[in-house]
């Protein structure tokens, strides 16, 4: 795991972009997250596994500052989001991209307006906005849908537009909430390829929530070949920039690399990944 290999004293410690320290959150007297602690380093992609209701999406919303924890500390890009007022969070969020579970595209805006939303809010000049929107949409291979409305797109296309909207401002961190949820296997692979491309081309740090094991393992075993413009298996078996975190009943029961995950002796984890 990146954190372990970097603390040997020979290399400077990689920068922590997201850190959860003993975070707890409950709704209606039911604890959803319990003493959650982990760190995400710069350039790393951490895949969050867990069954439905284990608190994965809540964890992403906490990282984004959309929810406040009952206790514990959350640091994002060196700032404590757990105690930050909403007005200051808006500034911080400009450096973070988020892809929501159901895409959450603005249904009254066109694809172009959706992707350009953040740039327009930042008063980016129209020519530059147009150029960056085209760039983001061509990244997800949807440049031909600019004038369409979200309702005119398929589920997979909407998810790709949501990715384009998240990456258009070149954020330092991206949070993916079940980006392949509810999609067919072929479309899911297309989406995962985009995430691998984003990770390897732009070196963006990411937290990715999923309940599809194969998505996480594709992330860990593949890299993006820019020359061939396609995803391919990693030479030595595992991409060290990808790690895994498993939640069970709101608690972190695993945080480590793909090798460590495969070698885990925990009965629940063995059953989960089998």
């Amino acid at each position, binding site marked *: 795991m990146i954190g372990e290999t970097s603390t040997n004293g020979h290399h400077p410690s990689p920068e922590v972009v997201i850190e959860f320290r003993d975070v707890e959150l409950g709704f209606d007297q039911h604890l959803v997250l319990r003493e959650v602690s982990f760190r995400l380093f710069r350039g790393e992609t951490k895949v969050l596994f867990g069954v439905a209701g284990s608190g994965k999406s809540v964890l992403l919303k906490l990282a984004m500052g959309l929810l406040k924890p009952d206790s514990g500390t959350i640091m994002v890009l060196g700032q404590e989001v757990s105690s930050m007022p*909403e007005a200051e969070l808006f500034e911080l*969020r*400009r450096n973070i991209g988020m892809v*929501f579970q159901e895409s*959450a595209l603005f*249904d009254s805006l066109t694809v172009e307006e959706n992707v350009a939303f953040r740039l327009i*809010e930042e008063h980016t000049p129209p020519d530059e906005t147009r150029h960056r929107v085209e760039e983001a949409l061509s990244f997800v291979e949807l440049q031909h849908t600019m004038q369409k409305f979200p309702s005119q797109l398929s589920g997979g296309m909407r998810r790709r537009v949501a990715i384009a909207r998240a990456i258009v401002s070149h954020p330092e961190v991206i949070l993916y909430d079940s980006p392949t949820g509810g999609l067919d296997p072929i479309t899911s692979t297309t989406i995962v390829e985009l995430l691998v491309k984003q990770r390897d081309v732009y070196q963006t740090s990411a937290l990715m929530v999923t309940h599809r094991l194969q998505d996480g393992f594709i992330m860990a075993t593949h890299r993006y070949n820019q020359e061939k413009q396609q995803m391919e298996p990693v030479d030595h078996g595992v991409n060290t920039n990808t790690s895994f975190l498993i939640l069970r009943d709101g608690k972190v029961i695993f945080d480590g690399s793909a090798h460590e995950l495969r070698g885990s002796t925990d009965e629940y984890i063995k059953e989960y990944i089998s």
Partner: protein
Amino acid sequence: MPILSPDELAKEKVAAVQEYSLLAGHSVANIFRQPRYLGDLLIQADLIGVGSLPIVTLTGLSIGAVLALQTSSTLQQFGSVSLTGQLVSFSMIKEIGPVLTSLMVAGRAATGMASELGSMKVTEQIDAMRALGTDPMKKLVTPRLFATVIMLFFLTIIADFMGLLGGYIVAITLLGLTTQQYWTSAYQQLQFADVFQGLSKPFFFGFIIATVGCYYGFSTKGGTQGVGRSTTQAMVASSVLILIFDFFITRLLIGVFGR
């Protein structure tokens, strides 16, 4: 729906009042903060103001005509049919114009806001907006609030005029009054206090319509069924609040102006 204990119910209601007060306070305070969404304000002004014009015009015309008919039958007993214009103008300008226009606009705008924002809430579009670094209060609530307040003021003036026109048509065609008789009677007794009373109400009612509509939209839970529930609640709450506040504002202004 779970049955709540009295203290839980009380806490829920107090929390709702607190949330509503915060939303109302922030939406007003945001007018002094950057960024300002002038484009969104104009879009909402068009939707709320121009969009409500046909129904407000029709309502004003109809109520004015009916008022003239109803009052004339009473006035006839005292041989004072010539005062029909005065009664129509007093009733329309001081009371019926602002209240009825507000109720009509509440039916269109408060429900529209609750359903639109409620749909955005349940499909995570509000969260997406926050995640994109934009304050939904500034982008969605403040333009709707100011558009409603401004447009309701002008819609009330239009409704008042249409009411007077409706009364005039009845007075001429059915009551045998002359144009001069009707308009002189309608205008002569009207004082600044009456006009002020009628035209100050839309500011309060517009505030109620927009903040209640947005509050119910933002607090929507439970998918499409929740959106429907929020829409109904917004309509009922805004109408009830308009009627309650109408009494207190009227009492206050009568106290201030003495009429």
